[in-house]
């Protein structure tokens, strides 16, 4: 779960990390009033879960009331890489001489947290990591003891941070680690951490992503969730509780288990088709989930045919088959042709149950995928 910049800054600021003066606004008038309040120059920043907001026109620096109004009019309501902007953060500009990076994340290879510092802030840190890995100082943290003070200092000195601000940066890194640890963060980042001419250190941006599996013990953070989906279909998937990713092809794909669904996508591609989506209905799916899954792919106008591939462990083939029949019997005319392949628990019973007037049944995964791909080719012609 991702926090917006303004939410992350609230959390950081409460913990004592310096942030610029700022105000949240949802209308143009509010934004202008906020700008007058924090003073000029200030930045008007779109609050959406998109990287590279600046380049995409979602962040504007303004110097006067007129400019503030113009920028707010441009940004509020704009479509930023598919996300609708309905909130902006109006924030005092920082007159900086240097930009640093500090971050904490989980190093999955090592199974432990890692704290990172770099003097090359203000740019995409993943690019820095790739071009010049040594430009980022990394310090692995023992999760049972937490970050020791020397580790924060070591990361800061290893990164080559100037002596005059090293203590402040180490203290910010320590606070960032503590927040990451307390709040079940997956990533916590300040990029850039700005350094002013008189050696003040200020968090000009803030990223805080929280482990969704841990939200049960952070009701305050759960309340902040505002995961505006990319498009209506992804919003629908959230509502139904599916793992769903929309792609740009025309073969609708429904299956159980992430690895098998990915494999089904890959096979569609292998046999010359184009996957329209990834949809994992999860383990133990019953009639309602089956119907919801079909509704999802039928609602995607790009889809020309659907492959429904279930390998039952805890999912039962007979229950899936009944769910497919029930869902399809609702229609006078089936919206898109559906090819079904059932294997595993109660698969034979399921194959018997399936109404072959409504669906095409195939015995193997390969056959089912090929049949679906050729159905989409027929539609194309």
């Amino acid at each position: 779960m991702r926090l917006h910049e303004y939410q992350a800054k609230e959390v950081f600021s409460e913990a004592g990390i310096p942030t610029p003066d700022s105000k949240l606004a949802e209308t143009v008038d509010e934004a202008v009033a906020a700008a007058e309040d924090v003073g000029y120059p200030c930045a008007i920043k779109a609050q959406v879960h998109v990287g590279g907001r600046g380049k995409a026109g979602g962040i504007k620096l303004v110097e006067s009331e007129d400019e503030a109004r113009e920028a707010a009019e441009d940004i509020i309501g704009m479509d930023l890489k598919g996300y609708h902007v309905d909130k902006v953060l109006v924030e005092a500009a920082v007159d900086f001489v240097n930009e640093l990076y500090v971050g904490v994340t989980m190093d999955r290879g090592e199974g432990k947290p890692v704290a990172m510092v770099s003097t090359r802030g203000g740019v995409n840190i993943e690019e820095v990591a790739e071009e010049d890995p040594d430009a980022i100082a990394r310090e692995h943290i023992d999760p049972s003891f937490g970050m020791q003070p020397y580790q924060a200092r070591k990361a800061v000195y290893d990164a080559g941070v100037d002596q005059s601000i090293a203590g402040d940066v180490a203290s910010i890194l320590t606070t960032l680690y503590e927040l990451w640890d307390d709040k079940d963060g997956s990533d916590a980042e300040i990029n850039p951490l700005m350094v002013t001419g008189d050696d003040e250190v200020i968090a000009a941006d803030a990223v805080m992503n929280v482990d969704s599996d841990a939200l049960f013990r952070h009701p305050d953070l759960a309340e902040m969730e505002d995961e505006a989906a990319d498009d209506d279909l992804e919003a629908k998937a959230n509502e139904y509780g599916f793992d769903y990713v929309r792609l740009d092809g025309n073969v609708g794909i429904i299956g159980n288990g992430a690895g098998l669904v990915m494999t089904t996508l890959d096979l569609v591609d292998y046999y010359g088709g184009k996957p329209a989506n990834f949809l994992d209905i999860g383990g133990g799916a019953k009639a309602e989930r089956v119907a919801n899954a079909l509704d999802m792919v039928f609602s995607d106008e790009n889809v020309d045919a659907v492959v429904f591939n279930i390998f039952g462990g805890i999912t039962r083939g007979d229950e899936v088959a009944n769910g497919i029949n029930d869902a399809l019997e609702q229609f006078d005319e089936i919206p898109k042709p559906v090819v079904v392949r059932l294997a595993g628990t109660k698969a034979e019973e399921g194959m018997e149950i399936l109404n072959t007037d409504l669906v095409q049944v195939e015995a193997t995964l390969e056959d089912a995928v090929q049949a679906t791909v050729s159905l989409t080719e027929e539609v194309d012609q």
Partner: protein
Amino acid sequence: MSVLVDDDTRVVVQGITGGEGKFHTEQMMEYGTNVVAGAVPGKGGEEVAGVPVYDTVDQAVEAEDADASVVFVPPAFAADACFEALDTDLDLVVAITEGIPTQDMSKVYKRLGETDTHLIGPNCPGIITPGEAKLGILPGNIFSSGNVGLVSRSGTLTYQVVDNLTDRGLGQSTAIGIGGDPIIGTDFIDALELFEEDPDTHAVVMCGEIGGEDEEEAARYIGEYMDTPVVGFIAGRTAPPGKRMGHAGAIVSGSGTGTAESKISALEDNGAPVGDTPEEVVDHIEDLL
């Protein structure tokens, strides 16, 4: 011979009184697994599926001589259950639970490194030695006994590949579902090492997926240390960067690490052919046996 579990494995089920725990205990026993106890705090003295329940894992081990546990405990309490199992010095702990917070697993992983216990999972289907024992939720009927070892990050993909193997008359020595979470106990290399040491495993199928670098590291291990032939399969070739494909670990990051191409070429460079489809995986195995 087999890997980690066999006829003699004595299993305690943590969370045996829950819906999942009870159902799968029955399934495991039906398959022939030697389930000797359950452990659920506050339920000591009860009986589930004819198996005595104890309040602690320690009591269960003491009374029934269990040497392995299967964890069906809900996510909020699962890390604690893993700590309890690890501190009881069991040989094997299989954590089925999905959705354990990653920071909890980081601590469990640290503790695991201080013990001699093998942890499989979490968020995994478990482990099975066909005809002998299964610890977890794998559907026993698709497996057959033989000489192909299998290690996989995904549950249903394991079933798919096993089904193809069994269909073509190729039985399995042991199949291990290591799970799709960012932090897991037994990883590919640990499993490959066990298969390499097992005289009855003549070839290994390794099913990986996008995300992380475990497959690349495993490929280097195969090239350097393994005589037993390995055939790979990588799911997620068509996954776009930045989108998480179900598993918490299955994501190609913006900088291009964890891609299917990098994993496939690492395996091939280290002498492990990679199948484009599950059927092709079986073709390769047939060639190598």
